[in-house]
Structures are given as C-alpha cells and as structure tokens.
C-alpha cells in the first residue's frame, strides 16, 4: 500500500510539473505585427477624426500585415475597431459581421457582446439567442477558446483525481459523495473540451441580413429559392463566383447566395 502511494505521489508530482504554465511570454511584436501596429495606430487617428472610411482601410491593412503573427487579443482589438468604424458609417449589418469575427477570438468580451447586441438591434436582426436551455448550453460550450477549454478540463480531471485519492485512502460515504460530485464537476468543466472536438465549419460565414436569406440552386437572382437562412445563421463557404457564394448551411442546405449577404468570420 505504501509503495503504491509513493508511486502515485511521484506520478502526480510529474503531472503537476508538466502542467505548470510556461514562463510568461512578453508581448514582443514581430515584424509583421509591428507593421500591423503602425497601420492600427493610423487607423485610430483617423477614427478619432471621424474619418471612418479611411480608418476602415487602415484597419484592413493592419489585419493583412499581421496575418499569422497577431495574437488573438491583438486581432480582437483590430476587428473591434473595424466594427466600430463601419457602425459609425451607418452599416450596422457589416458591424455585426466584424464584431462576430472578433467574438470568435474573445467569446466572453463584455464590451464586444454589448456592441454586437446593439448592432444587431439596429440592423433589425434578432438578438443572440438566450433564455432557453439549449441556447445557454451552446453559449457555455463556445464561451471558451480551445486552450482555455483544455485548462478547464485539466482542472476538472485533477479535482476528480484528488477526490478519488481521498476516497481510496479514507473511504466512507462522505468521500464517495465527494467523488460523485467531483465527477459531475469534471464533466461540466470538460464539456467545452469535448465540444472542441466537434468539427467546426472550415470557412464559416455569417448571414448578414435582417430578414431571412433566400438560397438558390444556381447563382442567378431570377431563380426561385430552394431554402431560406435565418439572419445570423452560420454557414460554410464552399465556392464562390463573381458576386455569389456557394454555401452549405444548417440541415445540409446547399446553394448560392449573394456574396454581400454573407460575411467571412475568419479574420
């Protein structure tokens, strides 16, 4: 018994050593990120002068310059500025698109959530679903990014192991209930991690319309609709042609929609 416990203690010590966070990484900007920072700064100046059109161009240049080098928080900053700029230009719909793209990197950012809520309201889109159990569960599953989900799941696992260890050594009803509770907690904490294994759309696009969007079998406006997409639905871009985009939507809906009615969320 003693040997087993000793081995276990060693194992746990190794585990903790592995799991310990790496030394802090200072936010140094690489070359691409530096150029992005410069564009971003210019965009901010223009934004402050209410020159929103040029500001949008600068922010777009910042995203392009920093492609692959920007961290999620940096990306969020630029995308939010884009959203604000197009909102000030009066295009609430496209503002929803930019804010939604930013939310993919920071799903719990309260200021972003407030802005997207207002933009959706101004654009006549329905509010982000809430109030139902399904909507709340979905919001919880997507409220953490993959690294955070792994940390949460890891924490849940540790709690469960600790409870099992106590039950192993001490036994009894209280320890058994502790294990049950810890198992439940571990499952709840691990849910976002499990959800991260569900394949996400490769090239997700957001339906940017106040009313439902007609999907046609070919890229021609005179054809009848074969399906309709709800405002705010997420679809996958499959192909594109001139002013049209071929999408695959919920329920395996496929077809063509006008390119300006959808907004790419990969930014």
């Amino acid at each position, binding site marked *: 018994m003693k040997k087993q416990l000793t081995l276990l203690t060693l194992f746990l010590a190794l585990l903790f050593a592995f799991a310990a966070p790496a030394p802090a990484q200072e*936010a140094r900007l690489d070359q691409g990120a530096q150029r992005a920072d410069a564009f971003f700064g210019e965009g901010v100046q223009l934004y402050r002068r209410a020159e929103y059109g040029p500001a949008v161009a600068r922010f777009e240049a910042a995203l392009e310059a920093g492609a692959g080098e920007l961290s999620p928080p940096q990306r969020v900053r630029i995308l939010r500025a884009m959203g604000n700029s197009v909102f000030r230009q009066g295009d609430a719909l496209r503002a929803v698109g930019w804010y939604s793209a930013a939310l993919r990197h920071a799903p719990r950012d309260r200021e972003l959530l407030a802005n997207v809520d207002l933009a959706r309201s101004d654009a006549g889109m329905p509010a982000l679903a809430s109030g139902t159990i399904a909507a709340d569960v979905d919001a919880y599953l997507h409220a953490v990014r993959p690294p955070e989900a792994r940390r949460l799941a890891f924490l849940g696992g540790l709690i469960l192991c600790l409870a099992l260890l106590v039950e192993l050594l001490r036994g009894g009803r209280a320890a058994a209930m502790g294990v049950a509770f810890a198992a439940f907690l571990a499952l709840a904490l691990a849910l976002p991690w499990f959800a991260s294994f569900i394949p996400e759309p490769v090239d997700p696009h957001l339906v940017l319309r106040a009313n439902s969007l007609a999907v046609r079998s070919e890229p021609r406006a005179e054809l009848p609709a074969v399906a309709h997409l709800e405002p705010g639905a997420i679809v996958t871009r499959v192909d594109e042609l001139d002013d049209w985009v071929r999408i695959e939507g919920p329920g395996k809906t496929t077809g063509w929609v006008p390119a300006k009615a959808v907004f790419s969320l990969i930014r």
Partner: protein
Amino acid sequence: MKEHSHSPIRIARRLLGLVVLIFATISSAGAAQRGRPVVGATLESGVIKLGETTRVTVIAEGTRDARLREIPNVPGLRFGRPQEGFFQSFVNGRSSVQVRFDISLRAEQEGEFTIPPFVLEVGSQRLETRPMALRVVRDMRGEELGFLEVRPTATRVVEGQPLTIELLLGLDPDMNFAQPRLPWWEELPGTVELESRPQAPGARTTRLAVNGKVDVEAESLGLQERDGKSFNVYRLERRILPVRSGLLEVPRSHVEFGRLGEDRGIFSRRSRKLDSYFVSAPAFEVEVVPLPRQGQPLEFGGAVGNLTVRARSDTRDVLVGDSIKLTVEWEGEGNLEFFDVPDPGRLDSFRGFRSYGKTEEKSADRRRVTYDLAPLSEDATEIPALAMAVFDPLLEQYVTLETDPIPIRVRPLEGGGGLLEELALETTRDIIDIDARPLGEGLGRTASSPNNALVGGTLFGLPVLLLGLRTLVRRRSGDPARPAAKRRRRAPKILRAALQRDSSPAAAALAFAEFLGARTEESEAAWEGRDARAWNQALPPEQRISTQAVQVLDHMRQRLEAAVFGGDQPVPNQELLAAAKSVVEAGL
C-alpha cells in the same frame, strides 16, 4: 474483511435521479399554472312534465383530462348513464378543448327540485358545478293564457360579436305572477355575460324573479293583441358575448305564471298560488364562427361590431409640453368592453406628442378613453386621426375606424426651449469605444495550456488508474472506512491522548495494549500475555513486521509490566510513543 458498499456510481445515479425529479416537479408545476379549466352544467329544460325525460349537460372546458366523479342523488329524479364526448377546435392559432358529459334525467315525482352540484375531477383538482333548479309538474297548461318567444338577434355571429337574446312574454291580464325558468340565464358555456343596456327613459318596467332567484328588470310593453286575444306583454333581454367558435346551444325556456292569492292571518300575510300555468319556447342554436384571419390587420385589437367613433380635446391652444386631454368614444353594437384600444405612444402619426397614459370608461353602449397627450414642439398643428381596425360582421370584413384630426395651436415656451430640449437630456445606447492602445500594450501574460493527451490522461487515465488501485487496496486491506480501520488509523493519536490524560504505569500499559489491539484490529485483551514473536511468526509472510520491531514491542511490553507489577520506573511517555511509532512504521 467486507468491502463497503458505498459505490460512487450508485451515489451518482441517486444524484442524477434527484436532479431529474426536481426538473419534473418544476415543469409539472409550470404546466399546472398555465391554464385553469372551467366547469359548468346546464339543463335542457327548467320545467318538465311528470314522467318526461330531459337532459343535463356537464362541461369541462380547457382540459382533456376530466372525469365525472359524482352524479348527485336526488329523490324523485332518475339520472341515466353519462355519455362522454371530447371536442377540440382551433381558433386564431389557439386550441380550445372541452370534455362534455350528457346525462339523461327522468322526472319521477312532481315538485320543485334543486339538483346539487356535479363533482368533476380535472387533473388533480376537484371542481363543482353550480346547483340547478328543476320544476316537475303534472300538467303544463297555458298556451291559451300566455305566450313565450325567445329569440336571438342573430343566428350566426363571429367570435367576439355580442349577441342579444330577447324574451317576449305575454300573459292574460288576469294573471298576476310570472316566474321565468331559463336554464341558460345564469350560465351559458362558451359565453361571457355583458352588461345590459339601460331601459329607455320613461319606459315602464317590472321586476321578475328568473329561476326563482335572480331579480331582473323587464320592460312592460303594455296590452297587446295577438290572435284576437289581449295579453300583457313583457320584454326581457340578455346580452352575451360568445368567446368560442362552434354551436351555441340555448336550451328550452319556460315561464310559470298564474294567479296569486293572499292568506291573511292575525299577524301575517302569505301569498299562495291559486293556479299555475306554463308556456315554453323551444331550444335553439346560434352558430359562432371564428374571426377570419385573411385580411386581419397586424394591429387588430379584437374590436368586433358595427361601431362609430368620435374624438374631442379639452383644449386647442396650448404651450409646448402642456397637457391635452383627447377623449375618444366608440359607440354602437359591438364588444365595446373587450377590445384593445389604440395606443398613441406606439403610433408614428403621434411622433410629435408624448403620451402620459389614459383613463377608460366602459359601458354596454359606449367605450370612452381619455388620452393625456403633450405636444413636443410648436410644429404640431393638429392632433392626428386615431385609427383602429374593427371587424364589421355586417360587411364581413375588417374596416378602419378613424377619428377626425383636431386642429390645435401650440405656442413655444418662454425662453425658446421646447420639450425637445428636455429630450436632449435623455440617454440612449451607443457602441462602446475602440481599444486604441498600441497592439503591443496591455496584453498581459499568456499562459500555456496542457495538450489534449495530458488532458485526456488526467480526465480518464488517471482516474482509471486510481480506481484500479482502489480495487487492489480494498481487496487487500478492506474498506478504510470500516470502524476497525478507522480505529487502527487513529490508534497513535488515541495513545498520545490517553498518555496525556493519565501516564500512570497501569494506565500506560492499558493504553499501549489498546493501541496494539487497534493496530491489529483486535481487542486489547488479545495482547494480554501475548508472545509477540510467536504472534509475528503466525502471520502470513507479507503481513509480518520486522524482527527489530518485534523486539521493540516485546521490550516495551516487558517494561510496562515491570512498572505495573514490579514497581519499576514507569516508562516515559516519549519512549512509549517512539516505540509505537517505530512498530507502526514497521507495518504493524
């Protein structure tokens, strides 16, 4: 050694069951609160002849789950077996359900009967209908001395359209009493009672006791000729509002009438019937159709009828922000008490006005609403028309009823500011500003995260390992929660506490024996006079302690015995505790 039966899986199952039970309770409570069923009962006829059969209809509305629990027992009346039926209709997207029980009733004795309430079980509730009155007579003469006509103002109405049932009663001039027996008067399923219209000024009226209890004012139309005979004619009216589509069944009506005489005693006077006659009017049906959905305006507030509207304001010359009382009156034949009136605060046409609420007066023939408005600027030159959608049953279509605009003059406030300036102090939502800091600033430290393999190992691998270890431990050492195992673990602490309480040689010896007994899960008596070496040899090899530990054990016991029985120096507590620790570490 028995394994303990507290399995985490079993406990988790119990917890899950408790959670499911809580959810089920909450949802069933919600379901119960969503709609309250209504029960009612009607007689096909309030007066029948001896030996005749009539019908009682008991209805439970708004539920599918209703059972007739009790049929009252009334001597002199025989009830038949209930025939159950279920009805469902869909009106304007709402489902209306009804369970109906038809029970035949045969009059076997003459007299006045009160049928007690019918008891129904609706879901888990117990509901009762109202009691009903029934008169059973030997003979119903009366056609030559009176007449009764009961007719509706329409035989086909829409849901929400008021309906008047008019009753004309004619009596021979010699008759001095009349008692209508109208089973539908107090309760008619599927309808709501409306306020009666007041009698015209100057109309002559008399009071009648409907069903023997409800005092009703009837208009006296005076003497009229019919078929060459003269009758005193009376008129009664009942206004109802059908709230459910389908066939509205109005049962047969009777009026008992005749002459009353008076018995005078010394101290009292009593009326008695000298003769009694009956007239009846047949049952009839009114078709209630649902409101058409086609053409129904979005803003339709439920107004049905043939209505007119007019508006007036209490003033036409105001300052900006001053109150204007706009009074709008709807009149005519319609559901005046029930529709939703328009709200100027929600209308685009009233953009230039602030609405501060309204007061309402409702009556049978009028709906008066007074809106409190204030013009926001001097640009307002009139109070706009207030429109309302109404379904006109005569035209069978939706029409818009509009008031006339009312010209007004709005003067600016002194100082030039208007209510609009006041509105400038109001707040509104706006987007939150950008984060304008440079991209390299304020990002904080980024922590690494474990990879998927590590997470999976911690979530699944390690718990499986621990469970396996647990199984081994249980098999080998039994359940650590057993009382003996707990005693074993606490033995060193108990020894320390006992020695602190009493370190006399006898107490120390006893405490040590108890310690040994707890560690080996035996009683302390088992260690009395025990040869530690022999004991150790007798153990399975994997449970034996080291020879050195046995020597320490033996030596300590000898010293304790010498101190107790031989008068030797007592063993110091520290040494005793050290010896206990060493044997525990050796695996005792």
